[in-house]
């Protein structure tokens, strides 16, 4: 059996106190799968990302990237992971190429090889002509594309994106979603795409992990999850599983 690109197991996290931001969260993302981490605001998505990238250490449980536990082998895990954070993280006063070279250097990729990969990734996103411009001169959609190009420079097997379409207009969103789907289909990259926007899910191909109040309410291919919840669409499933009903009701319904 192939090793999952991302394996989350028994993950719990508390920022102190009795309230858990995440509780017993477990799921896997296989190579080539586009998985949507779906959940309303405050469901624990960003906490999950901070744990998966090693910025936070979990209270309990494991996150493994291609079998490497982020807590025990952070170097090996991080080398196989590309991340697009929710907040923009480019240096606005540096050029596109300077930003990308900096990131490549952080992964030990030298100047010549970095420039080759930068050309490949930027060309795929039709931004190569703008490589010498300062990021400040780019619009939000283009900045996001640069961040995706950046996250791919070290050829990761897993791409994590935390609400990457926030603040983008509809065409920019579509471009982004299409591009990342192509990465899964063509390059076999595993993707975890956090969102609260249901229309970003392609019901034909995608998997979903539905997170609500720090717990996984459903996970699997879209069709299977809908069937399990007794709903026709993801939107219905989402509504049914994330309404603020007492937990017992939700479980009875599911």
């Amino acid at each position, binding site marked *: 059996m192939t090793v999952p690109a991302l394996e989350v197991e028994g993950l719990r996290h508390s920022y102190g106190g009795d309230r858990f931001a995440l509780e017993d969260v477990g799921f896997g993302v296989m190579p080539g799968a586009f998985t949507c981490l779906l959940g309303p605001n405050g469901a624990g998505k*960003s906490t999950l990302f901070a744990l998966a990238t090693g910025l*936070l*250490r979990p209270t309990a449980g494991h996150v493994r990237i291609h079998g490497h536990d982020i807590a025990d082998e952070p170097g090996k895990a991080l*080398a196989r992971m590309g991340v697009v954070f*929710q*907040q923009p*993280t480019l*240096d606005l006063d540096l050029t596109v190429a300077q930003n990308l070279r900096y990131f490549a250097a952080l992964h*030990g990729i*030298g100047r010549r090889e970095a420039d080759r990969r930068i050309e490949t990734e930027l060309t795929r996103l039709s931004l190569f002509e703008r490589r010498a411009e300062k990021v400040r001169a780019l619009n939000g959609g283009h900045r996001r594309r640069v961040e995706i190009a950046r996250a791919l420079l070290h050829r990761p097997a897993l791409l994590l994106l935390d609400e990457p379409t926030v603040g983008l207009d509809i065409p920019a969103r579509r471009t982004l979603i299409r591009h990342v789907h192509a990465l899964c289909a063509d390059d076999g990259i595993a993707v975890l795409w956090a969102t609260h926007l249901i229309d970003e899910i392609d019901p034909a191909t995608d998997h979903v992990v539905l997170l609500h109040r720090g717990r996984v309410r459903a996970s699997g291919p879209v069709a299977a999850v809908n069937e399990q919840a007794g709903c026709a669409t993801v939107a219905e499933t989402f509504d049914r599983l994330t309404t603020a009903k007492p937990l017992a009701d939700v479980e009875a319904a599911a």
Partner: protein
Amino acid sequence: MNSLVNGLGAKGWWVAFQGIVAREVLRFVHQRERFLGALVRPLVWLFVFAAGFRAALGIAIIPPYETYIPYEVYIVPGLIGMIQLFNGMQGSLSMVYDREMGSMRVLLTSPLPRGFLLVARLLGGVVVSVLQVAAFLLIVRLYGIDLPAWAPLTVLPALLLNGLMLGALGMVLASTIRQLENFAGVMNFVVFPLFFLSSALYPLYRMEEAGELLWWLCSLNPFTHGVELIRFALYGQVDGQALAVVTGATLLFAALAVRGYSPARGMGSRAPSAG
């Protein structure tokens, strides 16, 4: 694959180090106001403050000086220290900013160990401060202040060490400051005491004349020893006590800084901003 740790060979570490330093230098070069500010501040002190004090303040012959010196000559090492002090705090500010804006996360998603990344970032800041000092020394020379010909070279090791100490101090502060808005307080409670309670403006023996307590405070201030290290290095000499204190303080601050950024403590213990 010939790898040391984490699958990246020694070359990979070097590439990452260069990349981190280059980013700091590029960011500095792109922010012209910052460069000007870094230069104008010590020059104002030199041209206005020192010129005015020249008449009022006589300085006895104390090592490393071999003759009577004008006040401008005395104050130069202190102003070099000031450049590095402000640069260290600026580094701290940009680190808090990076953390608030999220770009600190990019640095920390490198597969290299966190301690190495933070030290590289620290050295990047030191390189920037050395560039600022070089520009300052050039103007000092053009202004006609007499320094040994080799001073810019002999002072270099002292600049590296003092820069590391102040940069590490900045990092400690950055790891304790939760919000950008709190930064002004740091300037008041850290920068001003460090600078004024030091040998930057007056020799310590003058402080002793002014009062025992003042002298004690100045003697305990690591910045005093940074300034003295620079003062002696400008004349090709090593002040052993200053070297010991600055080295010790650097190690202490660096250890605290790396501890402040450990993953168990998170990026601070703040919850992420959303979902």
